[in-house]
């Protein structure tokens, strides 16, 4: 038993999960850490915006970001209004902050539909194969064959425009990418001997699918979530720009749509502010997502897979 004695000395002092190893690799990526900081700042702003929104709503008053001040219409950026004001004299910075709230709400709510749907269908297809797989492949091919903007618009016409329409529309369309990736992972993992070992011990199919294989594909969900997040934001902007998106709340898309009418008057700060807020968040999330992918699953680096 020489191998046991010799190698136990080489074990590290503390047990190492694969997560801690991945985190150590992620930390080495300086740029990704900076971007993680940027994302953290956005999360802070999101929580602040949420509190402003709920504070006004629960007291049944008009929130400060909606209060019009016609004396200060289209004001230049100044110390009083860092990002200037819009056509109704509303502070642009306050609206941008609310835009963060809308963007995060859409991303979280859409993910709440997309992740369970994509994961479950992908897991079922990959694990059980046969007709289950055939049916699910057929289902996502049908969903995928329609240009996503068109299906999102038509779904939002059915369930009602605004936040609900966007979230349900994107959720019901964007699960395809995750489903494909999860299906592929399940196809791979069900061949592994640890699955046979669990079956030999008498573990049922559901236990194997959820308790044994699921932890091994969890990182895919995290990666897809971070990389899909910016796409949700961009889709919301496009939909709001097209006029089928958010109404009554200052989302970035609504702001850009409004701003385009006054750009020729020299009002650049409205468009500039919304674009910059969106740009930094999307960039930071993409870099964090890529770094996460490298840290969590080095083999995925070259896969085109993350389409959401």
């Amino acid at each position, binding site marked *: 038993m020489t191998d046991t004695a010799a190698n136990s000395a080489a074990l590290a002092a503390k047990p190492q999960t694969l997560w801690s190893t991945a985190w150590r690799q992620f930390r080495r990526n300086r740029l990704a850490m900076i971007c993680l900081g940027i994302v953290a700042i956005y999360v802070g702003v999101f929580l602040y915006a949420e509190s402003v929104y709920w504070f006004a709503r629960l007291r049944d008053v008009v929130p400060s970001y909606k209060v019009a001040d016609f004396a200060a219409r289209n004001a230049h950026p100044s110390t009083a209004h860092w990002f200037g004001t819009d056509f109704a004299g509303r502070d642009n910075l306050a609206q941008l902050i609310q835009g963060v709230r809308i963007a995060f709400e859409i991303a979280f709510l859409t993910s709440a539909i997309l992740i369970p749907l994509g994961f479950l269908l992908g897991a079922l297809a990959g694990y059980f194969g046969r007709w289950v797989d055939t049916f699910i492949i057929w289902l996502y091919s049908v969903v995928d064959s329609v240009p996503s903007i068109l299906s999102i618009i038509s779904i939002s016409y059915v369930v009602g425009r605004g936040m609900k329409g966007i979230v349900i529309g994107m959720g019901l369309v964007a699960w395809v990418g995750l489903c494909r990736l999860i299906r592929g992972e399940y196809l791979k993992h069900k061949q592994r001997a640890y699955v046979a070992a669990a079956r030999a011990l008498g573990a049922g199919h559901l236990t194997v699918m959820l308790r*044994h294989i699921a932890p091994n594909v969890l990182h895919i969900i995290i990666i897809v979530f971070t990389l899909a997040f910016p796409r949700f934001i961009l889709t919301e902007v496009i939909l709001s720009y097209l006029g089928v998106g958010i109404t009554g709340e200052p989302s970035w898309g609504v702001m850009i749509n409004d701003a385009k009418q006054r750009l020729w008057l020299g009002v650049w700060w409205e468009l500039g502010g919304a674009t910059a807020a969106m740009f930094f968040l999307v960039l930071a999330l993409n870099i964090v997502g890529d770094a996460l992918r490298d840290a969590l699953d080095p083999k995925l680096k070259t896969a085109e897979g993350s389409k959401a």
Partner: protein
Amino acid sequence: MALLEVKNLKVYFPIMGGVIRHKVGEVKAVDDVSFTIEPGETVGLVGESGSGKTTIGRAILRLLEPTDGQIVFDGHDITRMGDGELRPLRKQMQMVFQDPFGSLNPRMTIASIVGEALTIHFPQMDRAARRDRIAELLRRVGLKAEHMNRYPHEFSGGQRQRIGIARALAVEPKFIVCDEPVSALDVSVQAAIINLLQDLQEQYKLTYLFIAHDLAVVEHISDHVLVMTQGKIVEAASADEIYQRPQHAYTQKLIAAVPKAF
């Protein structure tokens, strides 16, 4: 009475093809194989890669669906048993896998890998008792109890194979299919694992089906040897006999392939 009786076992895999994915042919991985294993003995199963030995092992544990034939374990015909019916019998037959890397779930601790068998088959056991039992099993296979909170990637191939053995032992089985348990290990570690398997056999009165492609390893550990090629058993005899008087041309080829000291 024989512990395991395999009668005319056939395992065919369909070959799918064409536009609508229909069956266009089949691979006869195991083709009409019969043998018996008596309690307490070790039966070696040798053959080259692709000869169907692993398929036999997996079919016996019902990890694969047999196409035809009969598998009788300890008096029970398990050939067509459902999951639920099979579960109590799973306690009595286990498997040790070839690949020490793929056979342990990388996201589970050693305690949950070895302890899973206990949660399935001994649900009345409480946490403390389960921990004690896991510690005992780890010590029994030559590991330390404090290894139980670690993850598989922290161990060497030989140590992982010991963990796999501990997992198989957890349910107190009568019969273990050892599917090339040493072929992925360094030669120095191979001997240690084989000795461990022999010690355990003596202590717990285990019965082994020992699958290998290396006739030297099989001859050392087995009472009987089955030689397999292209899905069929071509020769079955005692270990000594097969080594001294190989009958079939394929067996003679296998023996000639064993490296000898000059």
